[in-house]
């Protein structure tokens, strides 16, 4: 099946594939199917780790994200934020939010905060939680945060110096942080390299929220203990929503995901059947 291409457009077969895909994923968004969502062990463990936070514990939520990737990891992050802010109210934990990846992380943080506004509106900013926006430097920013929090987070997103933020008074290094929720849509390597509970005794656990395709990359770190647990992509986000009892975007997307996957499997099987059929039909060359 050689593809004939013209400049500026896909082959007809490809365009038909795109169209069928769009129809398949759009159908469940209009007509609710409502397949059950089994909870994976990793998401359950992540939920229990977050739930284990006690009064006075510090939770860092670091987002290595761009707002364009919101559909993939946004549902999970919003569920985690809702959970975190609920615990601020109920248990008195402290929450620190920032991102170190690209400058676009600030938009992403703004967006997820906007979507979860009702959960933090009544909280005391600067005392219960704080937002540092974008801390440039990626891995070096993470390294600086681990060793000297006040240097890395010198001003919050509004320009308030860190010394004027009551929440940051007793947080000097990463050993003063209890747990980290780390979201990334790129490489997860930086988390175990810079913020591993094995290396920093005060840090109890880290959770990595990442794309499903990156989970296989992540598993060796999880097995070694450099990352405690993970939440995978939209599916993990949907599971987390079920666990906190607040179904949202993630759950809505799962039916469309199911149909998309079945379509992918059908294409693989179909193209292989066609290939084997045409391959079998070709006369075999006799070896001389």
């Amino acid at each position, binding site marked *: 099946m050689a593809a004939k291409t013209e400049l500026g457009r896909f082959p007809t077969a490809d365009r038909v594939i795109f169209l069928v895909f769009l129809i398949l994923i759009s159908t469940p968004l209009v007509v609710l199917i409502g397949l059950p969502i089994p909870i994976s062990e990793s998401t359950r463990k992540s939920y229990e780790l977050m739930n284990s936070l006690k009064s006075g514990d510090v939770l860092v939520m670091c987002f290595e994200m761009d707002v364009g990737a919101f559909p993939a990891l946004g549902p999970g992050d919003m569920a985690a934020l809702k959970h975190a802010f609920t615990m601020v109210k109920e248990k008195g934990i402290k929450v620190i939010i920032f991102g170190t990846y690209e400058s676009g992380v600030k938009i992403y943080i703004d967006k997820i905060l906007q979507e979860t506004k009702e959960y933090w509106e009544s909280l005391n900013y600067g005392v219960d939680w704080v937002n540092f926006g974008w801390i440039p430097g990626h*891995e070096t920013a993470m390294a600086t945060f681990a060793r000297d929090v006040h240097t890395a987070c010198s001003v919050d997103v509004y320009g308030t110096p860190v010394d004027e933020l009551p929440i940051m008074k007793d947080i000097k290094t990463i050993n003063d942080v209890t747990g980290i929720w780390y979201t990334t849509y790129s490489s997860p390597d930086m988390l175990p390299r810079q913020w*591993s509970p094995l290396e920093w005794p005060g840090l109890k656990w880290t959770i990595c929220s990442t794309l499903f395709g990156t989970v296989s990359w992540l598993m060796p770190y999880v097995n070694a203990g450099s990352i405690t647990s993970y939440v995978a992509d939209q599916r993990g986000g949907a599971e987390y929503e079920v666990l906190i009892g607040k179904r949202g975007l993630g759950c809505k*997307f799962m039916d469309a995901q199911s149909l998309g996957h079945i379509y992918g499997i059908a294409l693989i099987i179909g193209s292989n059947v066609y290939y084997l059929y045409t391959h079998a039909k070709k006369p075999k060359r006799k070896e001389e």
Partner: protein
Amino acid sequence: MLKSRNVRRSEENMEWVLIVEAVMMLLIWSFLYRESLFYRLGEHILIGIYLGFSIYMGIDVLLKRVFVPLLSGNVTVGLALSIILGFLFYTRYVKPVSFMSRWSVAVLTGCGSAVAVSGAIKAMIVGQLPQGSWFAEGITGFNNFVMSIATVFVIVYFLFTFKPTRLLKSSAKFGRFWLMICFGVMLGTFLLSNIGYPIGMAMKLLTPPALYVTIIAILLIAADALYRRIKGT
């Protein structure tokens, strides 16, 4: 007094905003039908805004971390040196002194690579070497055994330093078997990540008022396809 919170007037109830979002998404997605001025328009708007945003964020961080401390007199030797190095970046545009920009690049890359290497040794090499006991209870022992075998033979596959003997070749082949499982897992799990974006977009496009824009776009595409079919192009 602390600023209270990250306030932004909620615009979700402003329908025209949703229409603008839908138009932007459809401009980019028009490429799936064919490349057109609509797609190019979306592409250049994206790059233009991102360019502006990147410069804005750079200026924002520089003001907060460099110039405000500078103007308020909180200057240390370290800060002064880092500011000088920062400005040296821009000497690349002045030919006689453009060599100085490489000094800043060297310092920045030195920091980054040292941080990466120190983490790599601990997490990527030393952290991966210990394997669980093969004689642990239940299936754990078997799993540990499988993981160890897979690790060893994949490393053998990437050994290019030695002459490929028969043993090395068959070991590498077995390593390739494990690599194929690894790539299959990546391919299978990658799909969920990558179709998450079109699903998110489709949901927005099927919700009124964006739905009306979507319907207009579909009608335009259908008309164009029909026209081209009649014309024979």
